[in-house]
């Protein structure tokens, strides 16, 4: 089994999930509570990776982070490195690719929080930030956890985007799904099926946890 690829995928998924939580929480909050007319446009952009083929996304990302693009040029001026074929490039691609998986469950959960509780907090003089932290987040924690777990799992299973921007470098961009693909291509079906089985078990476990959370039959955090 290609443990190096498994370790890399885990590292990528942890980093992606951390970044997505940091971006996703404020973004979901904005989507739910903003009164801007054009927020449907933002929602559409966030949902794009759900419908775009990973090849399209990967192709655009490759062009967007290449040394000839403004983003790629800025990055190489700041860090001296290049984004394509690097872990950071893959991280950026994964964040974009899994964005809807984080944001949409959070939006659903924030939207389900009783508006009266939020307004009561505001009336009692609690700031918006503190209301978010102490009222909304605790009430929406199942949705937040779902978003985080789904984006973690989605990143582990990511294939098309990684194939397009990764360049298949061992220990840097050869993730577990790419490793399985290589094994199949090299006709090493037994190695491929071992790794695939591991991934299948993992994915099932993750989804089981997500559905358990949604049904609240298994509270991860005890209710306050």
């Amino acid at each position: 089994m290609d443990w190096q690829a498994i370790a890399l995928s885990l590292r990528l998924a942890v980093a992606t999930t951390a970044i997505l939580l940091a971006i996703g929480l404020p973004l979901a909050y904005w989507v739910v509570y903003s009164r801007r007319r054009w927020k449907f446009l933002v929602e559409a952009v966030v949902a794009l990776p759900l419908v775009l083929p990973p090849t399209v996304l990967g192709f655009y990302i490759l062009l967007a982070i290449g040394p000839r693009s403004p983003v790629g040029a800025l990055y190489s001026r700041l860090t001296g490195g290049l984004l394509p074929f690097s872990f950071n490039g893959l991280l950026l691609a994964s964040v974009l690719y899994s964005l809807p998986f984080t944001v949409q469950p959070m939006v659903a959960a924030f939207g389900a929080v009783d508006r009266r509780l939020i307004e009561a907090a505001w009336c009692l003089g609690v700031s918006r930030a503190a209301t978010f932290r102490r009222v909304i987040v605790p009430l929406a924690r199942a949705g937040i956890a779902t978003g985080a777990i789904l984006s973690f799992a989605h990143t582990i299973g990511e294939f098309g985007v990684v194939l397009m921007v990764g360049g298949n470098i061992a220990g840097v961009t050869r993730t577990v799904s790419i490793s399985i693909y290589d094994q199949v291509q090299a006709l090493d079906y037994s190695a491929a099926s071992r790794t695939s089985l591991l991934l299948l078990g993992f994915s099932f476990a993750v989804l089981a946890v997500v559905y358990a959370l949604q049904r609240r039959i298994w509270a991860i955090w005890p209710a306050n």
Partner: protein
Amino acid sequence: MAAAADLEFALPQIIRQFQSANPRTEVSAVYGSSGNFYSQIRNGAPFDVFLSADAQYPDRLAEEGLAVRRSRFTYAVGRIAVWVPAGSPLDLDRLQIHALEAGSVKHVAIANPQHAPYGRAAKAALRSLGVYDRLAPKLVLGENIAQTLEFVQSGAAEAGIVALSLAMAPSVRGQGRYWEIPQDAYPPIRQEAAVLARARDSKASARFLDFLGQDAARRIFMQYGFSVQAGS
């Protein structure tokens, strides 16, 4: 028929010539990775003819009874070239393979040597030209030879080793420069064809393979950056 991706430019011309000589036989080709076709054929994909990018897959299919053993033959030999975009400062004509050692070259794209015949050839060539150890940290692997070219075209890699047939393709020609790697630097990429055991019309399939070995087809292969074996 299932055809290797590197035939995407040469084969349509050959098919056109074949059709004008055999108007009653209909030929259509699907292009893709030979390894994928191999698994698809093993799992019952309804192809009549398989034009592989190497010899390994048709041989295996013949062993497994899925391809007609006697029908196998080498229809073309693939060649490889170092390719850089038109605006690249690299002097391929003077430095040849050593142009890739320049500090400005951060990434060199090759096809995955683990399963792509052109990747295996590229790796073997880098070895025999004595630059593999210095270039190994720069290598990025494309899933197939077309993606390898795309890595370079997009600017993500500064140079790549691709199929000569791609570098010479009409749509790629104006976009870059290439230096062909001498053919004695790597084992020949023998591309084999075979009629599949479950072909619906094995006579027509055999006729098409026969056509591939004739001068008209061989001329087109050569024009598109392949070489052909003498009297195969």
